[in-house]
């Protein structure tokens, strides 16, 4: 079942760091849920929710505020979120894709544009990325999109989020 659910998949080797995804997300959702970052080497990369098969964020949330909706998107139910101080979900995310904000429960995460999905539209960032770097595909098909370049670029970004060397200790 979960292989059919659609997720976002960003090819970091195609990304030029133009921030269109973040801007459009901000326009569509007020608080952006995808965030452009710059690694120490100056590689630009948007951090985004992978809507994991086994989402750590949902596991660690004591309130059960993070759930899968009927399309398989991992969503934060702000109604149930307490905005707790520990922010376990934020810490638990392997992709650094839950963001602290200054509004409401002080957290923002991608819900694959839930409000747009109701209208039969897809995620706004996918529509507007000039490079075509963001795909909205079934989880089972995401792997087929990978290339050597995309895997290498992904590894560079992960090394920045979670350094393996002495810097990470």
């Amino acid at each position, binding site marked *: 079942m979960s292989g059919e659910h659609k997720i976002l998949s960003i090819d970091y080797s195609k990304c*030029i*760091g*133009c*921030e*269109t*995804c*973040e*801007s*459009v997300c*901000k*326009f*569509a959702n007020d608080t952006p849920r995808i965030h*452009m970052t*710059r*690694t*120490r*080497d*100056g*590689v*630009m990369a948007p951090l985004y929710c992978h809507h994991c098969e086994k989402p750590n964020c949902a596991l660690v949330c004591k309130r059960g505020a993070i759930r899968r909706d009927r399309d398989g998107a991992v969503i934060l139910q702000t109604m149930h979120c307490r905005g707790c101080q520990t922010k376990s979900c934020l810490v638990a995310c392997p992709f650094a894709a839950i963001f602290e904000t200054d509004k409401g429960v002080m957290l923002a995460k991608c819900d694959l544009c839930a409000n747009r999905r109701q*209208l*039969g*539209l897809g995620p*706004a960032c996918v*529509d*507007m*990325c*000039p*490079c*075509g770097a963001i795909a909205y595909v079934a989880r089972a098909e995401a792997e087929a999109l990978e290339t050597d370049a995309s895997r290498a670029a992904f590894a*560079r970004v992960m090394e920045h989020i979670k350094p393996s060397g002495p810097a990470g200790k």
Partner: protein
Amino acid sequence: MDAMNFNFACAEPAPPKPGSVGIIGAGPSGLAAAGYLSCLGYQVEVYDKLPKPGGLMLFGIPGHRIPAERIALGVRDMERKYGVIFHTQTKICCSAPLHDEEGDHFCKEMLGFGELIKKHEAIIICSGSWKSRKMGIPGEDLPGVYSGLEFLFPIRAARYQSPSVKIPDVAGKNVVVVGAGHSAVDVVHGAIRLGAASVTMCYRRTAREAPCGVFEIERAGELGAAFRHLVTPLRILGAGKVEGIEIRQGELAEAGERGACAMVPGSEKVAALPADVVVAAIGEIATPPFAKELGLEDVRKGEVHWLHMTAIENVFVAGDALTGPSKIGKAVYSGLRAARSLANWLDLKALNRQDAYAYDDLIAIDDHKGGARP
């Protein structure tokens, strides 16, 4: 290749609304604004000096980074499904002398700004930043000296067959690139692909501070480009054409215990690099028409009563034309916000209530909270 969907704000066109909107410039902010307003049902007409919509996404950034087809398909959808009319090779005249900016020679038609204001209910200026910044050193006018855009633009534009567009001839030549932004990197890649004998990037600070980042510099190095840090260009050498560039070269100190390094004081030496082509990729300047008359400085500061509205009440401004050179994403956001503001204003105008909100607080305050400042 999927289309870019400039009409992302809606699933299908809304019923037509009375009134038309003109948009000057078909770059990221203009196209985003056109997409948004055509979703609402306005008749949108877009004017651009170039033969194809896309602006610097198409003519400034190399095709291996942004696929031209993806923009073209998005534009086609806007034309066919949303009835947007594109007037290409049309320049809205004119505060700067013609042929002052890259791409001016493509214009086949001139339209007066006054005509446009009368023709449309409202217009948005999204004319971007097309004038290259100069180094301001002697010898800069010698043949063989290019700005980043002068170098990159013809590579993309030559396929549109304007006789006055010529790809820079760098085959077998020594190329020196001044600057270390993304355009500078694109120039390096372009020069190598066009068969330059050597390519040297010169940057005033070090790779660690370079806007393009260490990774891109290393990658350029793998392709065969040299990188020199702590360089100040002094003058371009040569008689009749470029023969070299005189620079002041600093020396980097050893990293201290805390890792930071700086230039060795007094280490600067004057040197001459042989060069047949010098490209100064040091940024662009916005050249919106009638900046003064439209009070763009006030719009920039947010000292206006309507978001993105200029001193002329049915003229709005967005993107790089307003903020100066930025990023595609910033331009898109600015275009979308201006479009929304324009639509709100037109709605009130239809009710004859546009004065009802005009004396609210200046929007600058609001704007700061939104974090939308450049």
